[in-house]
């Protein structure tokens, strides 16, 4: 009986699948585009998590002379850190570190605890006006961590923008000297203090991307700015480009990244009306994952 049923199910499956099968269309092309986007996002998350780990480990390490000042104009040490000589990669064309920004006043009004959607909504709010966004994701553990990411398409480039808020008692910022000495991918760094005790650090990293024969075909840049305010809130915003090519740049300039990170609304408590309005935002991608989940051991979703 069981064997007969198995035979019947096999027969049914064959007939069901054979009926009305539509053309496969652009499945492969769409899958490739989705794969590139997914790979870029995972690298971005890995880079973000690793930058955070580096910052924690390097806290308290004595400052080393900033290599940015020693390098010839327009060139920086690139990937492949270690004792041997490093390859050199130019900073992206038109790139420049930006002058310090002075945060505006924190908006008045009743403050309520931050939510994942309010973090996502604020990320959209601090982006420049001429952008198209997709794949919005956010996660929040009030008082501990909050993050949001979104794919952004601007006239400057296409890529992802990520914001992470750190704990109130976050560690000190890593010095530029330590950052440049410790991570071969970092090709530019600048840190400075603003009035009121706010510390700002701008980082540029570049990772060569190529095919199997190790020929670098383009660079994946990350423009990152970390703003650590006197109240202990640490905000890191980074923008990174997709599908690296010779002329590919992140969707935001460093000035826009710094401006986004310095927005005074980043806080564990936000204006109640803003948080209420943010609940209407629709998250369209899975929440950003932490470092442990970035490199899977096997097939998974």
């Amino acid at each position, binding site marked *: 009986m*069981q064997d007969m*049923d198995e035979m019947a199910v096999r027969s049914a499956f064959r007939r069901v699948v054979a009926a*009305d099968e539509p053309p496969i269309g652009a499945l492969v092309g769409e*899958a490739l585009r989705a*794969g590139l986007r*997914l790979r870029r996002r*995972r690298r971005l998350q890995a880079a973000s998590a690793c930058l955070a780990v580096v910052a924690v480990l390097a806290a308290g390490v004595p400052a080393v002379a900033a290599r940015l000042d020693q390098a010839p104009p327009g060139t920086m040490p690139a990937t492949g850190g270690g004792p041997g000589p490093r390859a050199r990669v130019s900073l992206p064309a038109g790139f420049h570190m930006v002058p310090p920004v002075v945060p505006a006043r924190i908006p008045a009004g009743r403050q309520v605890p931050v939510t994942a959607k309010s973090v996502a909504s604020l990320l959209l709010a601090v982006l420049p006006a001429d952008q198209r966004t997709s794949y919005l994701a956010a996660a929040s553990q009030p008082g501990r961590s909050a993050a949001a990411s979104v794919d952004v398409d601007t006239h400057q480039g296409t890529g992802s923008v990520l914001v992470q808020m750190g704990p109130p008692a976050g560690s000190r910022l890593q010095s530029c000297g330590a950052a440049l000495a410790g991570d071969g991918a970092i090709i530019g760094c600048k840190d400075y203090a603003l009035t009121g005790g706010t510390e700002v650090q701008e980082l540029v990293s570049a990772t060569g991307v190529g095919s199997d024969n190790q020929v670098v075909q383009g660079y994946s840049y990350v423009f990152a700015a970390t703003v650590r305010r006197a109240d202990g809130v640490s905000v890191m915003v980074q923008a990174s480009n997709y599908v690296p090519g010779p002329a590919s740049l992140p969707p935001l300039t460093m000035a826009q990244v710094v401006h986004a990170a310095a927005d005074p609304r980043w806080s564990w408590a936000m204006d109640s009306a803003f948080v209420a309005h943010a609940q209407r935002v629709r998250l369209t991608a899975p929440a950003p994952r932490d470092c442990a989940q970035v490199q899977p051991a096997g097939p*998974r979703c």
Partner: protein
Amino acid sequence: MDSTEEFIEFAAAVGPRLRRTAYLLCGDWHSAQDLTQSTLAKVFVAWHRINSGEGAYAYAHRTLVNCYLAGKRKGKHTEFPVGGVPDRPSGPETTELRLVMLQALASLTPKARAVLVLRYWEDRSVDQVAAMLGCSAGNVKSQSSRALDRLRALLGDTLTELRVPD
């Protein structure tokens, strides 16, 4: 040929087969297309560390099933149990059979459905299915037996008629 070209060639070769399996799991071609696309995207991300050929297909297949089950766990899709199939056809005509069979499959749990598809569409052994789903061989056997009982109860005469080989 670089790795992206290899992936494109692989995806073009296995895409239709993966999509048919996805169709039996999901029950409609749109969801099957989405599931296959997200599966291939994940395979692309892991392409540098998986072997080509059958190894890559096995990886893709396992990813497909994992994605399907993960989607069900997250409640992305809604299922509704049915007490019976209301419009049972008089004979196994293809269109009616498709509707009846898909409705019957929809009444199974996602895991039972995956077991049936892997065992009787993909012709995987009990041990292979167990490894793919991360459960014991005994669990696969019992899931398969219960699922067949369920189909027998829902399909009745239709299943009997299908026992004649094609």
